[in-house]
């Protein structure tokens, strides 16, 4: 981001891009320029139209109106091939890699004439090695993509674009799946790329990343371009307000004295296929407390959640609820003990999309009074209950009888919150409760969790969002490969240190000690 590149050499120009999906205007007359050697951040909440805009740029979608010029030439609409040929590369949020193929195959695909009698792999391998050397993107060219970590897969995606001599690189939510260290490495790579004159569009809804990596920020809200700022002349607060369209209250955590131990795990182990999913995990959760569980997903959080939900029984160790060891692991019993769950995947596990809101809010309680009378469901009572949740938790929906899948992620999460909180739970297992939600909904979920904490509940908050953990948690633990670190009080936590622990630092020694 040197100053010499700040001449107005526009490499890409979008003019008046409009895209409608039925009645929804996903992009409303958006125009923007991208300059050589800059990182332009495209900031906006989910559903603001960032990904749609980039998919139009890359030719996955066809815009209803507007034109795209790359290096002064108008791109034909709806052709990824043309976009690639003009030097546009895209790293999709959901990687476009074939798992059963090698890195090299994935990179080479589409770069040779299809009817060539033999792929020229040797030459390609050399060029790939050269590129990964130059840009510090280490990958093994003959490894199967299925065997790579998420960070490595992303490097393959970037290499795919560079292999085609991309001059413009679009990264769609590239850090969503990365650890803090991997994110730093990615930023370093981006730095190298812009130094070589590439132009980068960085799509994100994470403010600190946008502040760290970009030179210019464009904010989208509800399909409209609402602001353009020089990164050096703005700050996180300003951007957050632009993104949401109103002022954002910061959640306030009042100090509060701890209640008695609600949940305790002692040396809990869970065997998995080949390797243990949980190894010697111990933890105490009190009433009036939020314990944050940090870690890259897939390091045992799922297993922990399954045990506490009663879906699986641990292979070893003890789980106690309010001082009583649990003998039978069964979801219905756990619910009866006062455990509420906000599951990780709300579409798959949280609600049944094709059932109505009112059917979903009694999914755990349809056999209890007052919803069940002499074995029949009392729909009048159910409807009253659903209507109350909809009102109290501000669930935007057509009505209690609407299909739940029609709700946005945020409203679905509010419905789940309402359902779970209505039982006045004593323990709340919140697994990634704000993932994929926009800032407004995130704030609401945070408020509700803090309110439950104030009312005496103990909350286990599993999250990959370190900012969220640090704002809400009284104590934080880190999970890595099925192990859990000792708890750290919030006042003693440093993000950088957490990031290192998430990457496994400090865990090997612990293994020897145990």
């Amino acid at each position, binding site marked *: 981001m040197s100053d010499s590149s700040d001449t107005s050499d526009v490499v890409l120009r979008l003019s008046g891009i409009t895209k409608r999906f039925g009645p929804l205007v996903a992009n409303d007359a958006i125009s923007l320029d991208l300059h050589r050697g800059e990182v332009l951040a495209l900031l906006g909440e989910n559903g603001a139209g960032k990904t749609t805009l980039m998919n139009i740029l890359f030719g*996955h979608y066809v815009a209803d109106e507007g034109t795209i010029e790359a290096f002064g030439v108008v791109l034909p609409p709806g052709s990824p091939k043309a976009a690639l040929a003009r030097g546009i590369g895209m790293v999709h949020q959901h990687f476009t890699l*074939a798992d059963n193929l090698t890195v090299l195959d994935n990179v080479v695909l589409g770069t040779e004439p299809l009817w060539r009698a033999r*792929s020229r792999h040797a030459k390609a391998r050399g060029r790939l090695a050269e590129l990964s050397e130059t840009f510090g993107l280490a990958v093994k060219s003959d490894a199967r993509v299925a065997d790579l970590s998420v960070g490595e897969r992303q490097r393959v995606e970037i290499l795919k674009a560079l292999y085609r001599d991309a001059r413009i690189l679009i990264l769609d939510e590239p850090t969503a799946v990365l650890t803090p260290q991997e994110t730093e490495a990615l930023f370093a790579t981006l730095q190298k790329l812009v130094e070589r004159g590439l132009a980068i569009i960085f799509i994100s809804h994470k403010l600190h990343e946008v502040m760290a990596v970009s030179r210019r920020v464009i904010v989208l809200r509800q399909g409209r371009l609402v602001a353009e700022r020089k990164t050096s002349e703005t700050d996180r607060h300003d951007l957050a307000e632009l993104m949401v369209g109103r002022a954002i209250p910061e959640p306030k955590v009042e100090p509060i004295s701890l209640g008695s131990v609600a949940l305790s795990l002692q040396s809990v182990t869970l065997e998995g296929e080949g390797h243990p999913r949980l190894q010697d995990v111990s933890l105490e959760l009190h009433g009036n407390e939020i314990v944050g569980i940090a870690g890259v997903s897939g390091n045992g959080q799922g297993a922990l959640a399954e045990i506490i939900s009663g879906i699986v029984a641990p292979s070893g160790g003890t789980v106690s609820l309010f001082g009583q060891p649990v003998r039978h692991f069964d979801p219905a019993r756990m619910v009866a003990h006062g455990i509420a769950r906000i599951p990780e995947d709300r579409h798959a596990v949280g609600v049944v999309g094709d059932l109505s809101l009112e059917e979903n809010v009694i999914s755990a309680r349809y056999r209890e009074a007052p919803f069940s009378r002499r074995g029949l469901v009392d729909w009048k009572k159910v409807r009253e209950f659903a209507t109350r949740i909809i009102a109290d938790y501000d669930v935007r929906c057509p009505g209690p009888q609407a299909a739940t899948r029609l709700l946005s992620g945020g409203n679905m999460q509010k419905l789940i919150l309402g359902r779970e909180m209505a039982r006045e739970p004593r323990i709340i297992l919140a697994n990634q409760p704000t993932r994929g939600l926009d800032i407004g909904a995130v704030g609401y979920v945070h408020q509700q969790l803090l309110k439950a904490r104030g009312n005496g509940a103990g909350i286990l908050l599993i999250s990959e969002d370190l900012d969220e953990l640090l704002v809400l948690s009284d104590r934080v633990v880190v999970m890595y490969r099925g192990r859990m670190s000792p708890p750290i009080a919030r006042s003693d936590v440093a993000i950088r240190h957490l990031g290192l622990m998430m990457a496994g630092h400090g865990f090997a020694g612990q293994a020897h000690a145990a």
Partner: protein
Amino acid sequence: MDAISMIFEASLWAAAVRIASPLIFATLGELICERAGVLNLGIEGIMTVGAFAGWVTVYSGADLWTGVMVAALAGAAFGLLHGFLTVPLGLSQHVTGIGITLLATSLTYYAYRVAFPEVTSPPKIETFVPLEIPLLSQIPILGEALFRQTPLTYLAFIAVILVAYVLYRTPIGLAVRTVGENPAAVEAQGIDVTWLRLGAVAVGSAFMALGGAFLTMSAFNSFYFDMVNGRGWICIALVVFGSWRPGKALLGAILFAAFDAYQLRLQQLAGAYLPYQVFLMLPYILSILALIAMSRRAGYPRALMIPYRKGER
């Protein structure tokens, strides 16, 4: 001769390779379709089409290789129909495939009746004759099994090598393997998913039709109703058995055919003691056992049976 020593008879293996030939063609065809992400249950009908088209072409005076070409083209045509319904229109691949089988079979029988309204016994053609490969055919057992077959059998083996080469060594093969795994990856690299899948289904269906043509132009010398007799369904299983790899699929086809050839001989040996249906069952039972053993962990193409619609959200 007892049941064990039969296994070492050259004639058993020669029969196995002969019985395997149509299976090899059709299995390759199904494999190509599925590698591109399209299940083709039209296989049974497309084999019937191939059997008829090749045979009727030769019967009308064309030479054998022209018959083979016509069979392949007829198969490709039905493949394009299946492809059109399942790829750009994105219809259910199961339902469409079964529909194609019913349509293709019925149309074939109709065409046969129109062409030969009066005949009681089906007309015959001069088929491919075995071609001995000099020297190689003198190898004990192997020579008789592999190198005294008809040209179509040799073509089947060449096709295995060809398909394996194209799939694993050429850019188009890479694209086909990728589109069955993750069509988004193909589109993101600037290749058209629709055309790629359509092409693969058409080519795969042409191979299936060759499998049918083998029946009328090499194994038998005329066309009968029901002559495909479930071979297409066996090929669907053989693709799974072969884990979507041409070489392993070839082995599976030969294994199945060997069971089949063996049961035919067992029937003659022990037919007096057991109803013949028991022997007919044998290869299928053994196939199921082999499937259980071999393909519990088969890595099927990830995008198999999932329609891809560009720009969908």
